[in-house]
C-alpha cells in the first residue's frame, strides 16, 4: 500500500500522533510511554491482553483520564483539553459498554450529535425535517426503520451502531472505537467491518478489538499492547507470527487452530 510509505507530513495535518503517553493511577502506571502514529485512510487496530491499557489510551486522548506526554492532532495538544473541546476538535469515540441517550429516539440521538457544528442561537430553534447528514448516517448504520424508537429499547449491537452513527453525524475525523463489534453475530460483524471500511476512507479510525477474525479481515495496521507498552506493530500476518504476541495474547490453541478450516469458519 502506498500510504504506508509516506510520512505523516506528506499526508497534510490529518493524523493523530501520540508520543510517550503515560497514565498514572496513584502509582499504578496503566500506560507507560506509548508512541502511536495514526494515519488517515487506514483501519488501525489496537489489540492486547485484558488490562493492557488499550481503553486507557483512548480515555487519555479523549480527556476522560489525565495523561502525560503528547497527543497532538492538527497542532493541538489533546492532553491539555477538556472532553467537549476534544470532540469539537474532531475526535470522537465510542464506549466499551454502549452508552446512548435512552429516552431520546434514534433520530434525536443522531440529531443532537450534530449539535457541535451549530451556532448557539440555533439551539433554541426547533428541528425542521431531518437534515441530510442525519439521513445518511441512519442509512449507513442501517437503523432507518427504527428511527423513531427510543434508543433505550435497542439491543446491544444496535446501540453500538447508533454510537457509530453519532460519530458520523458529528463528522468526527478521528474515530476511536472501543470493541465496536462485541456481541455481534458473524454477519453483523461483516456489515460493521464494511461500514468501517467505507467511512474510513477520509477518516482516521482506531478500533480496539479482541476478535481475531475481525482483525484479520479488516485491519490495515495492528498495534499490540501489553502491560501498558507497545509490544509489536505491523500487519496482521506479522503480528500473528510474533511469538511474544502468541505467548501473551493469542495463545497456542489459536496458533494451532489458525491452520484448520473449522476455526476459519468460526466467525465468517
Amino acid at each position: 500500500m502506498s500510504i504506508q510509505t509516506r510520512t505523516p507530513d506528506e499526508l497534510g495535518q490529518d493524523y493523530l500522533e501520540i508520543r510517550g503517553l503515560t497514565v498514572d493511577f496513584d502509582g499504578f502506571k496503566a500506560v507507560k510511554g506509548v508512541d502511536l502514529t495514526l494515519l488517515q485512510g487506514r483501519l488501525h487496530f489496537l489489540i492486547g491482553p485484558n488490562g493492557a491499557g488499550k481503553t486507557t489510551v483512548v480515555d487519555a486522548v479523549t480527556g476522560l483520564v489525565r495523561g502525560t506526554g503528547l497527543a497532538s492532532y492538527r497542532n493541538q495538544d489533546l492532553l491539555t483539553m477538556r472532553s467537549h473541546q476534544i470532540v469539537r476538535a474532531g475526535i470522537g469515540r465510542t464506549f466499551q459498554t454502549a452508552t446512548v441517550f435512552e429516552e431520546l429516539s434514534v433520530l434525536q440521538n443522531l440529531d443532537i450529535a450534530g449539535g457541535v457544528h451549530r451556532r448557539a442561537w440555533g439551539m433554541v430553534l426547533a428541528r425542521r425535517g431531518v437534515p441530510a447528514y442525519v439521513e445518511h448516517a441512519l442509512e449507513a448504520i442501517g437503523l432507518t426503520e427504527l428511527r423513531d424508537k427510543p434508543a433505550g429499547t435497542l439491543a446491544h449491537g444496535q446501540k453500538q451502531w447508533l454510537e457509530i452513527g453519532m460519530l458520523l453525524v458529528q463528522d468526527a475525523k478521528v474515530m476511536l472505537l472501543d470493541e465496536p463489534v462485541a456481541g455481534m453475530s458473524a454477519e453483523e460483524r461483516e456489515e460493521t467491518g464494511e461500514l468501517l471500511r467505507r467511512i474510513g476512507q477520509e477518516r482516521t479510525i482506531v478500533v480496539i478489538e479482541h476478535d481475531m477474525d475481525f482483525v484479520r479481515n479488516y485491519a490495515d495496521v495492528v498495534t499490540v499492547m501489553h502491560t501498558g507498552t507497545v509490544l509489536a506493530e505491523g500487519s496482521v500476518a506479522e503480528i500473528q507470527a510474533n511469538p511474544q504476541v502468541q505467548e501473551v495474547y493469542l495463545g497456542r490453541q489459536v496458533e494451532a487452530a489458525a491452520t484448520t478450516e473449522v476455526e476459519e469458519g468460526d466467525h465468517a
Partner: protein
Amino acid sequence: MLELRGVTAGYGRTKVLHDVSIQVDDGGAVAAMGHNGAGKTTLLRVAVGLLPVMRGQVLLDGEDVTRLRPSARVRRGLGYVPQGQLSFPQMTTLENLHLVTTDRAAIDEVLDTFPALRGLLSRRAGLLSGGQRQQLSIARTLLTRPRMLILDEPTEGIQPNVVAEIEAVITELTRRGDLSVLLVEQHVGFALRATQSYYVIESGRITSHGVGGPGAVDDVRAAMAV
C-alpha cells in the same frame, strides 16, 4: 434441569419473546444463538427471574419457579453470568468474590482458572478493564457452585487465549456431568464445541433446534441466514 414452557415476555408493552420453549437436560449443555436484538438476553433474564413472564412457565428441576425471585433461584443452584461485564464497582475484586464465599480453597480454585485476577485482588472492580471485569464476573458466578449455569456472551471482550481457557473450563465441568449449561454466544464454533445441542432464535421465536457439535456449524449458519 431447566425448562421454559411457552414463555412470552417483554418490556413494558413490547413483547420480545413469543411463546418460546426450550429445555436443558441434567448435565446437558445447550447453546442459544441469534442475531443482535433477537431476544437472547431477554430469554436468559426470564430464566433467571430478572424479568417477569407475561405468559408461560419456568421450571427448575421440574418445579415451577416462575414466581421465585432470582436470589431464591440462585439458592436452588442457578448461576448467571450477565452480558456486559457487570460487577460491584466500588468493592475490590476480592470483596466481589467474598460476596459469594470466603472459603479460601474455593477462591484459589477459580483464581487458577483466571490467573490474571490474582494481581488485581485489592483493586476496585470499577477500575478494572472490561475484560478483567468479565473474567471476574465468570469467576464470581462459578463460586456459587451452580448446577445450572447460564452464560450471556461470556467471551465478549476477553482476550483469545483466555477465551480458550474458559471453553476448557466449561467443557470440563459439563463433562463431569454435575453441571448443566445454557450458553448464549456469538462465536458459533465456540458455542457448538462447548454444547451438545442448540437453538436458533430469531425475532423472539425459536426457528431452529438441533444437535450440536462442530458438525452443526453449517446448519446453524444456514438457520441464521434465513
